[in-house]
């Protein structure tokens, strides 16, 4: 009797179908019918036309082959990237773009982390920022204009709200504009929390002076680090470019001298627009370097900047 099925192909096929559908139903189909698979954060917004156009390019270029978009709830991962990913962040992601390989860093919290200008320049030449980066150059996206009619069709297909002006706006935009716009909105629905630090970089109560102040070796090292990490935004001689001129102290809007440890703080943690530090309001846009540079390296950069100021 038990051997019967191996002589009856139709019966065999029916039994095999039932057998494969059990796990399918329990782990995939039934959960789909429950609200736990369709969460949505309150302040999550559908993509705008420009953002969706950028997401299309992200898909087209296969960015998800090298970049993930999900931060796991592991301590060091939260330290490196930011708040871990929430199920409700992805309600408008058709499809999800979590990826499965981090040849490059995770991008779940990249939105708003850097100024737009940083992204433009990085897409145009990633190696200018990180000499040893293996990211392909995407400068050519600048030469491709968007196709508003196509993007409108995509918005309609997904049922995302838009007004005619949104579509009108697209005709002067390039693919690179769209991609930057998308990258800047990734993770925007999750409130940014300060990345937990084991100990504050510098104490708040009393000022710490630069251990390398005036040390010629540190200044030379700092110059080197500056050339690799800072020059791309602040100019080769720190005369200013995307970021402000660092040689005239005006960028700090400071009355009188600014202590070394404030420089350290800004380099270490970056700035956000409107941030108030010792009575000064920051314009924002400075990238945090605590994941890129060690404390000694940051102090060396401070020593270098000091050495070229007022010259």
């Amino acid at each position, binding site marked *: 009797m038990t051997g019967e099925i191996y*002589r009856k192909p139709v019966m065999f*096929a029916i039994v*095999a179908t039932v057998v*494969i559908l059990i796990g399918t139903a329990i*782990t995939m189909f039934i959960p789909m019918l429950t609200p736990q698979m*369709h969460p949505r954060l309150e302040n999550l917004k559908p993509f705008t036309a420009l953002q969706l156009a950028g997401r299309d390019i992200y898909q087209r*270029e296969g960015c998800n082959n090298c970049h993930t978009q999900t931060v796991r709830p592991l301590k060091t991962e939260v330290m490196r990237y930011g708040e871990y990913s929430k199920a409700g962040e992805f309600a408008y992601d*058709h499809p*999800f773009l979590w990826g499965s*390989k981090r040849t490059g860093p995770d991008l779940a919290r990249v939105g708003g982390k850097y100024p737009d200008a940083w992204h433009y320049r990085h897409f145009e030449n990633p190696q200018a920022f990180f000499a040893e980066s293996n990211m392909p150059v995407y400068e050519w996206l600048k030469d491709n204009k968007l196709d508003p009619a196509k993007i409108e069709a995509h918005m309609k297909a997904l049922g995302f709200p838009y007004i005619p002006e949104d579509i009108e706006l697209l005709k002067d935009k390039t693919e690179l504009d769209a991609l930057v716009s998308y990258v800047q909105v990734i993770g925007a629905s999750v409130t940014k929390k300060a990345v937990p630090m084991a100990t504050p970089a510098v104490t708040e109560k009393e000022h710490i002076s630069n251990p390398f102040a005036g040390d010629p070796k540190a200044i030379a090292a700092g110059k080197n680090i500056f050339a690799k990490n800072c020059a791309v935004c602040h100019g080769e001689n720190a005369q200013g470019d995307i970021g402000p001129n660092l040689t005239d102290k005006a960028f700090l809007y400071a009355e009188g001298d600014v202590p070394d440890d404030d420089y350290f703080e800004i380099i270490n943690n970056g700035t956000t627009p409107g941030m108030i530090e010792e009575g000064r309001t920051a314009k924002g846009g400075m990238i945090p370097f605590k994941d890129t540079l060690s404390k000694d390296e940051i102090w060396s950069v401070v020593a270098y900047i000091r050495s070229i100021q007022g010259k």
Partner: protein
Amino acid sequence: MSDYQYDNETVKGFIISSIFWGVVGILVGLWISIQMWAPSWNIPPYFTFGRLRVVHTNGLAFGLGIGAIFGICYYITMRLTKRPLLFPKLARFHLYLFNAAIALAALSLFAGMNQSLEYAELEWPLDVGVVILWVIFAVNIFGTIIKRKEEQMYISLWFIIATVITVAVLYIVNNLSIPAGLFKSYHLFAGVNSANVEWWYGHNAVGFIFTTPILAMFYYFLPKSTGIPIYSHRLSIIAFWSLVFAYLWTGAHHLIYTPLPDWIQTLAIVFTIFLIAPSWGSVVNGFYTVGTDWSKMQTNYLTKFFILGITFYGLQTIQGPTQGLRVVSQLIHYTDWVPGHVHMGTMGWVTMTVAASIYYIIPRIYDTEIYSEKIANTHFYLVLIGQLIFSITMWITGIQQGALWKAVNPDGSLKYTFMETLVRNYPFWKMRTVGGVIFTIGMLFFIYNIFMTIRKGKSLAAAKA
């Protein structure tokens, strides 16, 4: 001799096509392996890593994998049912449509038409094509089996039937999408649900493209090559049903520590561990079969392909479940460990078994002997060495990456920047390219051997006529 003719032309056509697409896929693989450590090898817009990687995976999974599966399953089915295919002309049309679809698929992926679903990247018009291809395959396989001349269905036919049914269900469901133009669509599912559907598909594509049809080949060609019957029929029954039952529960092990509900992740981990048993059912069956006469390893050149293949399958199905455990996943997920794992399966198990099956089939179709066993042995050792270099370098650098990402200073801050963890991969990525070159040379020996066997067969046939 029987009074009917097997449709050898279609089988040949599929085998040669799959070898062709295999070469394309392997060369693209070498190219992207170089791009990993030399970004200047990216040539925008068509030949950047992001576009080429999907040409590599699709070219090999669909071009080499499915092409070989179509051809070899037709070969096996005809012999196990003791009759020609029910619809030989349809099978021939199937072959032409297959090649057209793969060519268009490759072009569309170069052009960046990409659904961003791993192993389901093809856009919806091509999905429709793939479904048509699959229906043709199913009709011919089922029709031939139903009209068979041999009452008992041998093990290989069970695996072929399971493959035909499951791939159809997987492919259709995961490719449900909202069309937004002729070459653009969006996954019907969103967010966590999209992820759950995709990895239910993605993992089972591995199960029912790289496992069940390859096991069908293994169970057929191992006894055929060695002349030893399969050790235990009962074990193969248990292994078959438990494998096809358990596989479908395990997709979420690709989503450990993501926002997918924990219970789905945990259930997937449990069934993933369970999968060791049915996988090893086939491994044990293979070893015990040859175990009745180990001298076959020396006297029959194909035995070592099958035994090494099933050994890698065994290692793969121990390593895979281990990776599913949360404690292991947190270290190696998203690192190069995973490509190391995947390539042990594809280069070690799948390619080894498919190549051995082709070595068996081609001389029989052309009524001759293999051109050179010596070249076959050289092929064997080169692909073995190439694959070991690939996998081992990726495991080492994967563990290194995972450990560096987690490393903290005594004050609790992160020890390494992302760039510092990236650059340490470069020496290993370069070694991987070397492994890939060795593997490719091995495959060229294989292709040369097959080509020369065909030539020999043709000239013998001409001499007879």
